[in-house]
């Protein structure tokens, strides 16, 4: 390192350290969001420069002279050397979605500090490490999927457990995301109209791209985005017109609309709906994230939320039950550590990467970006009045649904907001009500409209609110569509073992049947969540978090096994420590969800409480009838069984992997792996964002 470089990195370290100091020490005063940004960026820079570099060269032994599968197997289709900056864009667009926006908003009930620390520390030592190491190992195996690698390197038991976990998380993920959309659109004609309009817009784009102007993606997307903004503005007029009633749908109707949409979208040809939607949502997503970052930097809002609320200790928070450990780490998955990413890192990206030494930039770098999005989400949720936050995010059973009862409820849990303030907050964004708009999206939209209107003027507040809702709903629907397709392919592949034609992509009965099964599976949880008297987000979000962290545990286990198999026992801690942490968190959460005797926390305790009441002929609040009582019993049984299943799966995979690790350590010869032998590379490409010549100047 040269003197200049030492000076620069010392300065970065000092800025980061000062920012952390301010966050930690300013306990009773409000602080500016700028400090959170500075702490995050400073920490990321140091982690990327030093820790990720250490992992890339020392631990993994990435070698620029070794050809990647993209170079060796280049077929102009799935294998193709792709410019690192372009691939970074693709990879980031695939990993970043609603997750890093929703989780931090919910976790803000414990204050902004626990969530922020976990997002930053978690990404540096766990999330980004997982993404990068999985990407590396998959790249060394011609882009094999996580499930295949688990089967090849751990064994059939681990492989089957991984397959079940992937399918289960897919179903829960789609249900929870769809639930977020339903909660955001219920009884909101503005939002429902705008989102409904995205379907004809996408059809138009698909047709335009297929028939009128083949391949002109940018032009098509520009037209689509313009129409989309028009649809958002038009939503405001629709709300004030006689059409308003047509687009005012209750949650249950929306569920059936979404289920129908999910099925149709997943059997239509890709070019018709999925591809244009994907362009639209990706550009909107990146655009909005950039806007949000600029908005925060320009307005530098002040945090209104407490740094740590009492719910962190007593576990009685209304948004989700349970105390800080383990539930902050379950609620914030995407942004800190997300198992789902291991599917992307072992999917398309390893087949496109140009140089082995780019895994740091693409795997670790893209995850740092997602983490930054999560930090912005927690800022957006923490700059709004905490009273409003709790009125919006507590289930309807708690708030009672009116401004008066919600105000009373919020005052009862130690925060304050008047009924008038609640009403005027709703009026400002032209919504009927904001009470119990759970799921995170509306809260984030309020925070974003606050930030954006701070820069553009109060008059645009309602527009920005609906813009934010639209942007989230848009890419959640794309996820639902794409996820249903991926689930269908996995199911087709599995059923193909029994009856061959299922594997055929063109065999329509198989396609329809498998699509219907996947849609029915997430549709069931979506419906159960929407009609659950205890609140769907409150009940299902922990399950989603546990499933996601379970997948992360499988990915980290695989990474640890591979490090040991490759004779790198002394570096195995790089993935073993995050694995130990993740397994502890997930197993503790599952244990509490299964065995806790507190009915608010444990699914089975909840079941018993309601079952006993039914036996005595009583109706317990918040249920209003015997039918609702039975619903609670069914839901808590299903959720409890799933929590237990997830825990068992983790234990099976870890035990099976431990067997292989011990065998590998004892064996004199290295155990066989499926790594593809080295071949020399002929491509010359830089490894980082900047060109090597420029890099040498810095380094």
């Amino acid at each position: 390192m040269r003197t200049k470089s030492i000076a620069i990195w010392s300065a970065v370290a000092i800025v980061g350290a000062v920012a952390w100091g301010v966050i930690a020490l300013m306990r009773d005063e409000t602080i500016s969001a700028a400090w959170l940004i500075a702490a995050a960026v400073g920490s990321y820079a140091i982690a990327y420069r030093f820790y990720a570099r250490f992992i890339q060269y020392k631990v993994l032994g990435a070698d620029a002279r070794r050809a990647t599968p993209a170079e060796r197997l280049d077929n102009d289709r799935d294998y193709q050397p792709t410019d690192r900056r372009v691939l970074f864009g693709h990879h980031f667009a695939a990993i970043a979605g609603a997750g890093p926006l929703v989780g931090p908003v919910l976790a803000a009930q414990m204050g902004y500090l626990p969530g922020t620390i976990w997002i930053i520390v978690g990404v540096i030592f766990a999330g980004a490490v997982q993404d990068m190491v999985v990407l590396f190992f998959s790249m060394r195996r011609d882009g094999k999927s996580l499930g295949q690698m688990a089967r090849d390197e751990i064994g059939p038991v681990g492989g089957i457990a991984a397959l079940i976990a992937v399918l289960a998380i897919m179903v829960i993920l789609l249900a929870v995301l769809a639930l977020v959309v339903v909660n955001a659109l219920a009884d909101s004609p503005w939002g429902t109209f705008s989102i409904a309009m995205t379907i004809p817009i996408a059809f138009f784009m698909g047709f335009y791209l297929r028939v009128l102007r083949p391949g002109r993606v940018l032009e098509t997307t520009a037209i689509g985005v313009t129409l989309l903004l028009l649809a958002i503005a038009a939503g405001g007029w629709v709300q004030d017109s006689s059409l308003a009633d047509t687009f005012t749908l209750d949650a249950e109707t929306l569920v059936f609309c979404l289920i129908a949409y999910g099925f149709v979208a997943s059997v239509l040809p890709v070019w018709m709906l999925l591809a244009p939607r994907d362009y639209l949502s990706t550009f909107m997503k990146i655009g909005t994230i950039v806007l949000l970052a600029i908005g925060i930097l320009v307005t530098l809002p002040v945090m209104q939320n407490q740094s740590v609320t009492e719910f962190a200790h007593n576990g009685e928070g209304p948004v989700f039950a349970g105390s800080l450990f383990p539930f902050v780490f379950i609620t914030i998955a995407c942004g800190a550590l997300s198992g789902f990413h291991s599917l992307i890192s072992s999917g398309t990206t390893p087949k496109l990467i140009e140089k082995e030494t780019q895994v740091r930039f693409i795997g670790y770098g893209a995850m740092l970006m997602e983490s930054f999005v999560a930090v912005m989400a927690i800022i957006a949720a923490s700059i709004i009045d905490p009273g409003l936050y709790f009125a919006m995010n507590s289930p309807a059973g708690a708030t009672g649904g009116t401004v008066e009862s919600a105000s009373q409820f919020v005052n009862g849990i130690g925060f304050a907001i008047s009924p008038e303030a609640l009403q005027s907050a709703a009026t400002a964004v032209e919504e009927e009500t904001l009470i119990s708009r759970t799921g995170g999206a509306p809260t984030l939209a309020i925070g974003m409209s606050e930030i954006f209107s701070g820069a553009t003027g109060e008059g645009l507040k309602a527009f920005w609110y609906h813009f934010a809702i639209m942007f989230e709903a848009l890419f959640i629907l794309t996820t639902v569509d794409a996820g249903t397709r991926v689930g269908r392919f996995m199911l087709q592949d599995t059923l193909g073992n029994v009856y061959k034609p299922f594997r055929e992509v063109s065999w329509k009965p198989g396609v329809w049947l498998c699509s219907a099964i996947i849609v029915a599976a997430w549709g069931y949880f979506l419906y159960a969540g929407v009609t659950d008297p205890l609140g769907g987000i409150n009940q299902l979000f922990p399950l989603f978090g546990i499933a996601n962290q379970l997948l992360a545990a499988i990915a980290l286990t695989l990474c640890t096994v591979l490090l040991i198999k490759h004779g790198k026992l002394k570096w195995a801690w790089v993935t073993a420590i995050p694995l130990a942490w993740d397994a502890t968190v997930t197993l503790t959460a599952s244990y509490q969800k299964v065995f806790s005797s507190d009915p608010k926390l444990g699914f089975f305790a909840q079941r018993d409480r309601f079952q006993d009441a039914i036996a005595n002929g009583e109706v317990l609040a918040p249920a209003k009838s015997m039918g609702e009582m039975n619903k609670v019993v069914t839901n808590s049984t299903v959720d409890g069984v799933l929590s237990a299943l997830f825990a068992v799966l983790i234990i099976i995979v870890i035990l099976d992997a431990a067997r292989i690790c011990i065998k590998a350590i004892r064996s004199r010869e290295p155990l066989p792996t499926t790594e593809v032998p080295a071949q020399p590379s002929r491509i010359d490409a830089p490894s980082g964002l900047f060109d090597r010549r420029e890099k040498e100047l810095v380094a």
Partner: protein
Amino acid sequence: MTVRDVLGGVRWYLREVAGESAYDRYVEHRRREHPGEPVMTRRAFERWRQDEREARPQARCC
């Protein structure tokens, strides 16, 4: 670096990310590796590329 360079870079990046440049690369590849053989029209190529996506769905994360 001039303004023109920056705009050119942005244009290059957007075209690459959106896949608009795929056809140019395909034509160049055919000319280089299979000279004299027929080259698909843009319409046919884009159609083939879209339909090809059918068999390889990409998951979008949460």
